[in-house]
C-alpha cells in the first residue's frame, strides 16, 4: 500500500513546514516539498491540514483480559486510532494482573492480531499488584515489557518499594508509580477541599499523593532507579519533581488532559464522570500543571484512559468506580482549551504527545523522518468534533466531555502505512 499525503503542514524537527509525504511498505519513504509519483494507491490532499507523528499514550487501560465488557484490545486500539494515537502502553491492572510472561504474551499477541495501534506492555511491580512480593520483572522484560507499574495500586511498604526499585534497575526497567498513600486517601471520593465539604463527600487530600511522590523520589535517588510519576496532579508534587530534577534524580512525570483542564468544581453536580484518581484538584494546581508542562517539569501527557460501563458509572457517586476514558477526547480538548486560547503552543502539545513519551519509556523513535514507521495522524484544526455515545469507538462512554463540541478533528490515522482511522 502506498499513500501520498500532499501539501500537509507537517511537524518535522519541532517545526511546521509544508511537505509531501510518501508512505510505502509501512514506512515513511520520502518527505519533500513536492513528490510526484505515478503509481500510488491513495493520494490525500492535506492542504491546510496538519500532519503529525502518531500520538503515543504511555498510560492506557485496555481492560483485556478479564473486563472486556468495558473495553478490549480491538475496541481500545480502534478508539486510539480515532484519537490520532498509534502507540499505547497498557497498564497491568487487568484480570488477571499482567505480572507474568504468559499475560504479557497474551496482550502482545492480541494486539498484533487485532490491534489498530501498537501496544507495549507494562508489567506489574509486585505480584498481583498486591504490594507484597516482587513480580518476575526480568522474565517479563525478556518478553517485551517496557516498564513496571502497580497502577491503580501503590506499594505502601517503603522497604519493599526500595527493593522493587533496585531490582527493576538491575534489569533496566523504569518504574511508573500511582502515588497514593492509602491511609491518607482513605474512602475519599474527590479532592479534599471546598467541593468535598459542600457535597458531604469524603476527601482525598493532596498529601496522599505528595507524601508518596516525596518518598519515591528519595528512594529512587538512593538507588539510582528510573522513576516515572503517573498522572501528577498537585502543585506541591510538581515542586518536589522540580527540586529532584535539579538535583539530577532520574525522575519524569506525566499529566492527564483532565488534570490540565478541569478542577473539583466539575464535581458539583455529582457527575460520576468527574470521579477519578487522583481527583480533580483546585485551580491553583491546574495552573501549576499547565506551567510545568510548558517548562518541561512535566515531561509528557498521558490519557489514563480508564473505561467503565454505563451501569457502573450511572449510580450513586460514592459507589461508582474511579476513572474516565481519554483516547478519543485527548487531542481535541487539549487543542480547544489549551492551544487555541494560547495557554500552550501547538508545538509543545505535539511534543508532549509524541517524542516526549517516547523518551520517557525509551520507545522506538516515531518522528516524521524517512525510514521511520509510517505512524501518522492528519488533523484539521479548523473543523469540529462532537463527542457522542455513537461517535466514541471505545466500548465505554464515561467522559466528562460527552455531548460537547470542540475545535479540531482527526481526519486520518495511519499505523505502519495502514489506514486505521478515516473520518466520514
Amino acid at each position: 500500500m502506498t499513500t501520498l499525503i500532499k501539501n500537509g503542514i507537517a511537524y518535522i524537527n519541532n517545526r511546521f513546514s509544508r511537505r509531501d509525504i510518501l508512505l510505502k511498505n509501512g514506512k515513511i519513504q520520502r518527505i519533500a516539498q513536492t513528490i510526484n509519483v505515478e503509481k500510488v494507491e491513495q493520494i490525500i490532499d492535506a492542504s491546510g491540514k496538519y500532519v503529525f507523528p502518531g500520538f503515543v499514550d504511555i498510560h492506557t487501560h485496555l481492560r483485556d483480559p478479564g473486563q472486556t465488557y468495558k473495553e478490549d484490545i480491538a475496541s481500545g486500539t480502534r478508539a486510539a486510532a480515532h484519537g490520532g494515537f498509534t502507540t499505547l502502553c497498557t497498564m497491568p491492572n487487568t484480570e488477571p494482573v499482567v505480572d507474568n510472561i504468559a499475560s504479557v504474551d497474551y496482550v502482545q499477541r492480541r494486539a498484533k492480531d487485532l490491534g489498530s495501534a501498537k501496544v507495549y506492555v507494562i508489567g506489574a511491580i509486585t505480584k498481583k499488584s498486591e504490594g507484597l512480593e516482587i513480580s518476575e520483572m526480568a522474565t517479563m522484560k525478556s518478553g517485551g515489557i517496557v516498564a513496571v507499574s502497580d497502577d491503580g495500586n501503590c506499594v505502601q511498604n517503603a522497604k519493599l518499594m526500595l527493593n522493587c526499585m533496585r531490582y527493576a534497575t538491575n534489569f533496566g526497567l523504569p518504574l511508573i508509580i500511582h502515588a497514593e498513600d492509602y491511609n491518607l486517601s482513605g474512602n475519599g471520593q474527590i479532592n479534599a477541599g471546598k467541593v468535598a465539604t459542600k457535597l458531604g463527600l469524603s476527601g482525598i487530600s493532596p498529601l496522599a499523593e505528595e507524601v508518596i511522590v516525596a518518598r519515591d523520589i528519595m528512594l529512587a535517588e538512593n538507588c539510582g532507579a528510573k522513576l516515572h510519576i503517573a498522572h501528577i496532579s498537585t502543585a506541591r508534587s510538581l515542586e518536589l519533581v522540580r527540586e529532584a530534577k535539579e538535583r539530577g534524580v532520574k525522575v519524569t512525570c506525566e499529566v492527564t488532559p483532565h488534570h490540565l483542564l478541569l478542577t473539583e468544581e466539575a464535581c458539583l453536580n455529582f457527575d460520576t464522570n468527574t470521579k477519578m484518581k487522583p481527583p480533580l484538584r483546585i485551580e491553583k494546581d491546574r495552573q501549576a500543571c499547565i506551567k510545568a508542562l510548558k517548562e518541561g517539569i512535566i515531561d509528557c501527557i498521558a490519557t489514563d484512559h480508564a473505561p467503565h460501563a454505563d451501569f457502573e458509572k450511572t449510580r450513586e457517586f460514592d459507589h461508582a468506580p474511579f476513572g474516565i476514558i481519554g483516547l478519543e477526547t485527548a487531542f481535541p480538548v487539549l487543542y480547544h482549551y489549551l492551544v487555541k486560547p494560547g495557554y500552550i503552543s501547538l508545538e509543545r502539545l505535539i511534543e508532549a504527545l509524541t517524542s516526549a513519551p517516547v523518551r520517557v519509556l525509551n520507545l522506538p523513535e516515531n518522528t516524521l523522518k524517512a525510514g521511520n514507521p509510517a505512524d501518522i495522524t492528519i488533523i484539521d484544526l479548523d473543523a469540529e468534533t462532537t463527542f457522542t455515545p455513537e461517535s466514541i469507538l471505545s466500548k465505554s462512554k464515561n467522559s466528562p466531555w460527552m455531548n460537547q463540541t470542540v475545535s479540531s478533528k482527526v481526519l486520518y490515522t495511519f499505523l505502519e502505512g495502514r489506514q486505521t482511522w478515516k473520518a466520514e
Partner: protein
Amino acid sequence: MESTPQFIGRSLYDLDDYSADEIMYILEAAKGMKEINLREYKKIPTLRGKTVCTLFVEDSTRTRMSFELAASRLSADVVSFQATVSSLRKGESLQDTVNTLNAMGIDLYCIRHSSPGSPQLVHKYSGKPVINGGDGRHAHPTQALLDIFSIWERLGNLKGIKITIVGDILNSRVVRSDLIGMTKLGMEVTVCGPRTLMPANMEQIYGCKVEYDLAEALKDADIVMGLRMQLERMTEGLFPSLEEYSRHYVLSKETIKFAKKDALIMHPGPMNRGIEILPEIADSEQSIIVEQVANGVAVRMALMFLILGGKL
C-alpha cells in the same frame, strides 16, 4: 391556601435551589399545616389519589414516620420501600428499584440514602419530583426547614438571630443544610467542634464563623444546637473518647451560661443524653427539641402540598 406553579413538580435536593422568599413561603404553608395537626380530626383530602413513596436506603424510623404521617394527613397513598445499602448492592441497583417503583405510579419520592447526590439520581431515573430526606453527609433540607420554622415560630423573626451549632460538624448533613438556609434568611451562624471534626473551608463556603472553643462559640448566642456525637468517630481516629469530648463540648447548665440568658436549645435528634447534651438542658424550659419533631410533620406536609399542587 394554594400551591403556586413555581413549586409544582419541583424537587428539593437542598436549600440552595430555593430563594429566601420561597423558603418563607414554605414556612407560611407549614404554619397552616400545623393548625391542621392541632385539630381533633387531623386529615384533609387535598392529595387524594396521589401516591408518595418513602424510599429509605438507610435506617431512620423517625424521619420515615414523619414523611409518612405527613403524606397520610394530606390523604395521599403511601408506599414504603426500605433496604440497606448492602442488600441494594448485592441485588438490585438503585436504578432497578426506582424503575420498579415508578411502574407502580409514584407521584413523589422522599428518599434517605447514605450516598450524597442520590436524590438527583432518583429524579433522573424516575422523572418525578424528589424530596431529599438526607443523603449521606451532604444535605437534609427538610430538617433545616423544620429547624428554621421552629426558630421563626418562637422568635417571630430570623434576621440577625445568632445560632451556635456544636459537635461533629464534619459528619453532619443537618449543619450543611442549616447553614445554607439560615444564612440565606439573615441569621448569623457559628459552628463549633474540635478541628478533627471540622470540614475544610467552612467560612468561605457558608459565610459562617468557626470556633474551636465552646465558651467562645456560645458568646451572645440566641440559640444553641447540639449534634449527635457518634462512637464510630473514635475508631476513625478523630477523637479519643466520649468522656474527653464531653468534658470540652457538652451542653450543660454550666456551659450554656456563656450564651444569652434564656437561649433556645435545639437538637436534630436522636440525642445522646450525657454525651453532647445533659438532661438538665435537653429537658429544660429553654429546650424546643420536642417542638422540632412536631414541626417536622408540618414542614413535610407543606412541601408535599406545594410540590403536588394541593389546594385548601
